[in-house]
């Protein structure tokens, strides 16, 4: 079961983490470590790109909540993009749609952080 994780720095100090393949209990630590590593570098504006995601169990959902808590504790956030219909159903079951900001694409996600900057001025 393969998992790919790629991160890319964007403007506004936003980091986009593209998660592809399958997130299971077996490999979810890799995902958690990536988020922890970015937080240690002071990156708290995280966007998780789920376009390439085929499968995510509750282990992966736990990592998303972990990242959300860490980011928000430092005035940042963890936002989601490219949520597929099948993943949306999982998010509805767990009511995660109420907790996470879900945006359609990278551009919108980066823009959403600059809007947060303006509103906090």
């Amino acid at each position, binding site marked *: 079961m393969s998992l790919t994780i790629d991160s890319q720095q964007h403007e506004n100090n936003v980091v986009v983490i593209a998660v592809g393949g399958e997130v299971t209990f077996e490999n979810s630590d890799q995902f958690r470590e990536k988020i922890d590593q970015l937080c240690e570098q002071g990156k708290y504006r995280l966007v998780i790109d789920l376009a390439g995601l085929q499968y995510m169990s*509750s282990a992966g959902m736990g990592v998303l909540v972990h990242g959300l808590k860490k980011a928000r504790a430092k005035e940042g956030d963890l936002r989601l993009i490219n949520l597929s219909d099948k993943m949306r159903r*999982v998010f509805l079951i767990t009511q*995660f749609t109420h*907790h996470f900001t879900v945006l359609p694409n990278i551009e919108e996600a980066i823009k959403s952080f600059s809007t947060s900057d303006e509103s906090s001025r």
Partner: protein
Amino acid sequence: MEKIELPAIEENFETLMNFLEERVDQSGLNAENLMLLKIAFEEIIINVIHYAYGEGGGPICVLVDFLEDPKRLFIEVRDHGISFNPLERADPDIHVPAEERNIGGLGIFMTKKIMDSVTYRREDGMNILTMIEGITEE
């Protein structure tokens, strides 16, 4: 009915997932329901791998069958570990803010929501968890 029995250890996780996948891929379930089914199955087998046995270990047995009238998928997971009904675990409060959310229990909660039926019984020294999912022809 098809069956696989292996030691309930993390090293066998992928084999168990593949066993299910190979049997349900052509079942008529759509991609969305297949993913949900895998999520439910993963939660149950992880539960056995992590909690059924102490250091001595023991087997996990998975049975898969397709039932007719109405068409449905039958999955049973058995272990000889300590008596434990995972369905009795309290559901997590999914309405509290994310920052306060405790992720524990989410997997079993998802399993109960995903499957049409999930039942537990203790029989002949075994924990037996049975999951049924209806298959709608598309």
